[in-house]
């Protein structure tokens, strides 16, 4: 029932008796980490962190504000944010129902469907981009009909960027939301049914609010993945400034022509990633609901 957590019995350890002292000595001994584990661990940490430090150290700080406001940079930044946001929207509209289906409906072949959903997660993005091109390209399986009947061409447009990003990022959302759905006691949904709620009403008024933290976390992961998308985008959407050239693409290109500008853009992407991690940690991972 209602418990008072403020007065919990969490008195600090005071090693007074011999038993206590022996116990804390053992705890100290356990704290000594063997070298074959400590050394690689430290190397791994350095390996992960040092490149980022390099990025920060080499950044052209004095010219940073001026470079950030250059029209090409702003265009890439704007396109990236817009495309990632649209892609996340697409993932939400399509991915949440898919996650619900996987978590709540027992249909034949569910395990296969779940496996298929995770394919883009492990597939090299370039392969994903190529696959999209073969499906939606001018002479693709579906693309040829879009072209012939509606005069619609998808590849090498901003729409293509959104599609490529959604393709790569959707599994993150589906997996996160499915996990959240499985974590919610489905007896709340039974309770809603006994109160006269149809399955759709139950989904809207009970399930969705209960998994909102999971959906939010999934969306952030999905958005971050979309923002950083490179391989599928360059394959399927090409590299046209202002139209399909997102931040990762311009980082890659600027590295040849204007390395400091590439560093500036990378720094922006790094800042966004760190901000997302912090947000996830404090808002959703640490304290659910």
């Amino acid at each position: 029932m209602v418990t008072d957590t403020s007065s919990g019995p969490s008195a600090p350890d005071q090693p007074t008796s011999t038993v206590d002292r022996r116990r804390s000595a053992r705890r100290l001994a356990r704290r000594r980490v063997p070298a074959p584990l400590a050394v690689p661990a430290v190397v791994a940490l350095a390996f992960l962190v040092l490149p980022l430090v390099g990025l920060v150290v080499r950044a052209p700080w004095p010219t940073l504000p001026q470079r950030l406001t250059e029209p090409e940079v702003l265009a890439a930044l704007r396109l990236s944010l817009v495309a990632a946001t649209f892609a996340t929207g697409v993932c939400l509209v399509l991915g949440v129902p898919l996650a619900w289906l996987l978590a709540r409906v027992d249909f034949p072949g569910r395990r296969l469907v779940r496996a298929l959903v995770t394919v883009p997660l492990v597939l090299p993005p370039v392969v994903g981009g190529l696959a999209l091109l073969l499906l939606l390209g001018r002479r693709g399986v579906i693309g040829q009909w879009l072209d012939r009947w509606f005069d619609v061409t998808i590849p090498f447009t901003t729409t293509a960027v959104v599609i490529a990003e959604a393709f790569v990022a959707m599994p993150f959302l589906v997996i996160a939301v499915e996990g959240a759905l499985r974590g919610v006691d489905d007896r709340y949904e039974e309770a809603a049914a006994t109160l006269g709620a149809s399955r759709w009403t139950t989904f809207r008024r009970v399930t969705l609010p209960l998994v909102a933290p999971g959906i939010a976390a999934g969306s952030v992961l999905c958005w971050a993945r979309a923002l950083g998308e490179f391989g599928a985008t360059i394959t399927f959407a090409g590299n046209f400034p202002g139209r399909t050239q997102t931040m990762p693409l311009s980082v890659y290109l600027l590295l040849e022509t204007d390395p400091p500008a590439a560093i500036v853009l990378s720094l922006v992407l790094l800042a966004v990633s760190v901000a997302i991690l912090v947000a996830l940690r404090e808002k959703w991972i640490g304290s659910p609901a």
Partner: protein
Amino acid sequence: MTTVDNPGSAPPATDRTASGLRARLVVDRLAFRLDIDLTVAPGEVVALLGPNGAGKTTALRALAGLTPLTSGRIDLDGTCLDDAAGTFVPPERRGVGVVFQDYLLFPHLSALENVAFGPRCRGASRAEARAIAHEWLVRVGLADLAGRRPRQLSGGQAQRVALARALALRPALLLLDEPLAALDARTRLDTRAELHRHLADHPGATLVVTHDPLDAFVLADRLVIIENGRVVQEGDAAAVTARPRTDYVARLVGLNLYRGRGEGHTVTLPAGLTVTTADPVHGDAFVAFPPAAVALHPDPPQGSPRNTWSATVTGVTRHGDYVRVQLAGGPGEASADITPAAAAALRLAPGRRLWAAVKATETRAYPAG
């Protein structure tokens, strides 16, 4: 499949005059089978009492439409809800209210919104639904906590919100699953009395599922006791207490119970023991007597060898101002209540052999058939 040959349990296709609940519930779950008949009249409160695993919750889920019947039929106010063949009314269209054991109040909604949820789903406007919800919160005495979230409510308050939520739909059948099990002893006492008042006011049929005999005795007009998916006894509290028909029921009401063959004023129990009883009985019969009617002696008592058997102590526990002694041997397990002084004089310890005797005037005998 079992065919129903008892006309009382199988109403015709649609009987508009029949009101309340009439059900024959058969649900198979792996190796377990629930197979019970239940009728609850409008305004009547029936307790479905039984040990854990007896099938109580399965019965409740079948009535609510959360588990389909394997066989049998459910009729509520003359409308068939489930006939295990073509008809299955889903839970949202049954008009059956449920108070779940852990209440399942929606954590993201306030108490008022929780109660308004049902009316809203039934097509009431937002304002109407809130008005109905407010009225129900007033009835359960929680109007001042309407804005609170479930986690800000105490166990007893949450229980009342759950009751208001279920009643706000004016269900033809109200189901309560262990309504007091989640409460601490003190809250339970108050809540039980208050729940009794609300259930007595409810014009529809009410079924309370519980494993607590006290809840059943206080809340219900009639008890249906099930064990292993079968009804073992039915009746009002007085009838059940006076004449238990299984060990489980006997233990619930605190009696020793044995089955034997009656011949007038004697009943022969297994192990050859003959008990003289106050009531005459013939054929297959039960003999019941309270633990306080059992006397313990260190040596074979003088006089009548009847109603006396040799027993071994298997347990001794102190209950208030008496000592409860568990015995084995003779007709089977028995409990005896003796004074602490007598217990000390007998040097009671597990394994000790004694003589147990019961007075004929304190036994009750009744037919088992």
